[in-house]
Structures are given as C-alpha cells and as structure tokens.
C-alpha cells in the first residue's frame, strides 16, 4: 500500500506517462494530447459560425473527451488514497516562495491562490482566470500542450514540437522570474 499512498519516484512516473503514447495509438490511432479537448468542448458548447469549431466533434474527439473525463476521475481516485499531504519540494523553492508570500504548502496548489474566495484577489484572478485563458489561447495557437508537443511530438522527432517546447519554457521562465514577483 506504500506504493499507492506515497508519491511515485520519477523513474516510475516518467516511463508510465510515456507508455500512454503507444497505448492510445494501439487502441485506434489516438494521439496523446489533452488540449485538443478544449477545442472539442468549445465545438460542442458553442460551435456558432466559426470554421475552426465546425467539425464532427463527437466522431473526432469523442475518444479524447472520454480520456479527459477519465483524467478527472483518476485525479479523484488518487486523491482519495493519498489524503492531504505536502508536496516535498526542495528547501530552496520553499524559501523562494515564502519570500513571495506563499505560506500554505499543504495540498497540490497553494490555498492563497487556488480557492474560490481567492478569485476575488488580484493574485488569485491572475493565477486562475488569466492563467487559464493563456493556457487555452496558447495551446490552441501552438496546436498542442505538454502532452501533445512535449511528449507525443518530441517522441516522434517533430521539429514544430521542439519549437513549441522551447516556447513553453521561454514563457514559463519569463512568468516565473519577471511576472510572478509583481503580483504575488
């Protein structure tokens, strides 16, 4: 049971994540990529006149939407086994974040930013609403996210994915070093 309750070491977690690429391909040429579901959800919810959303989302994305529903359920199951626990980040990261005003290290995300009441604060709004918006716009523009580009794309040696991943880190570093200190 220790295996179920403790966090997985990288050398188990990483290879398991990688195995989802061949698994989905074998099931029916499914390409691992979660952000495509944001497009499918838009297409289902408000297709309107935009050509980008006018396609058969049930046929094209039905399998992927089921996959993402599974992710939600899997997150629920895993959290039931674990219960609340601190993420064992490095002492230096803890120190750096404490300097920025993050003091609650329980759970997967800091409660100072990721609760419903925090939405009404500037830092909570930026973390959830602006962050989410940029994730949705950026992944659509880039044609993929961490799973679609960094895992599936790089595994297939696709140059566009390498450019995209370089962009992911450029954006992440700019935000971490220059923007987070302004609003946290």
């Amino acid at each position: 049971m220790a295996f179920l309750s403790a966090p997985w070491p990288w050398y188990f977690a990483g290879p398991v994540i990688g195995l989802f690429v061949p698994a989905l391909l074998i099931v029916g040429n499914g390409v691992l990529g979660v952000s495509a579901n944001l497009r499918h959800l838009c297409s289902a919810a408000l297709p309107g006149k935009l050509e980008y959303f006018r396609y058969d989302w049930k046929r094209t994305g039905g399998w992927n939407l089921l996959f993402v529903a599974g992710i939600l359920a899997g997150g629920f199951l895993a959290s039931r086994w674990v219960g609340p626990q601190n993420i064992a980040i490095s002492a230096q990261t803890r120190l750096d974040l404490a300097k920025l005003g993050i003091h609650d290290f329980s759970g997967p995300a800091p409660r100072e930013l990721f609760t419903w009441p925090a939405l009404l604060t500037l830092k909570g709004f930026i973390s959830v609403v602006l962050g989410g918006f940029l994730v949705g716009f950026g992944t659509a523009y880039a044609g993929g996210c961490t799973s679609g580009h960094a895992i599936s794309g790089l595994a297939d040696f696709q140059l566009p994915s390498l450019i995209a991943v370089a962009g992911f880190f450029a954006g992440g570093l700019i935000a971490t070093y220059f923007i987070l200190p302004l609003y946290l």
Partner: protein
Amino acid sequence: MSTNTARYDSSTNQRQVPSGIGLFICLILGICFGITLTKSEVVSWFRIQEMFRFQSPRMYEIIASAVVVAAVSVALIKRLGLKTITGEPISIPPKRLQHGIRYAVGGTIFGLGWAFTGACPGPLFALVGNGVSVMIVAIASAMTGTWLYGLLTPKLPH
C-alpha cells in the same frame, strides 16, 4: 474538407480514431493517466515552480524519461509495423511547420499560462478531481482562450 481548415491543423481530418470498445479503453486509460499525473505530482503548482526555478531535477527527469519511453515505443511500432486493435496501420500525423510562428508564439503564450496556473491542460482536469474545484474556472477560462483563437485564427500569423 476546405483548404482553410487544413491550414490550421490535422485534427479534423478523416483520420481513424478510437471507436467501439476502444472508447471504453480510452476512458480506462484516462483514469490511469489521471492517477499517474497525481501520483507523479506533476499536477502541483509547487512542482512547476520548482521546475522553472531549476531547483530540482525531478520534473525534467519525469519529462525526459516519458519522452524516451514514448520515442522507443513509437519506433518499435513503426519497425514492427504494428496495427491498431481494429487492424488499421498506425501513424502519427506530422505537425506542419508552416512559418513556425504559431509554435514559437503560441508556445510562449502557453508557457506564461503554465507558470501562472501551475498546470497544463491534463493537470487542470486532474486537479478538479483532486478537489481543487476552482480549477473549473481555469478550464472555462481556457475554453474562452481557445474560442478566441478560433475567432482570430484567420488573422493570426502561422
């Protein structure tokens, strides 16, 4: 299909996708993926901050080993000529480079959002399952962002 849609991506092509029993397997695989994202802690804002601050190799080790295993698997599938469970040949549609702008600019915009939310799309859904229910708002916001891209895409450089 129109050439206009073809410009943007290949995901709406008449490509074979999982169907029938495959749909059920996708749901089960999704559950396994959600458990993996949670147990690997890649869903954690703290882990993402640690990664962008280069203060632990953990996230890089996870991503790198995932890519290696996926790459070896894909190479084996091609070498052995494996078929899907319904007997179709397996292929991965290539991403079109175009001018590369969409990957550099779109990727950077996503990177900003990744650091703000501490979550990429998979973890957004896993976190809702983990009880961080406010991430429902982040998902709605991400849909708004995707919708805006759909609106602006004819005008954006790709």
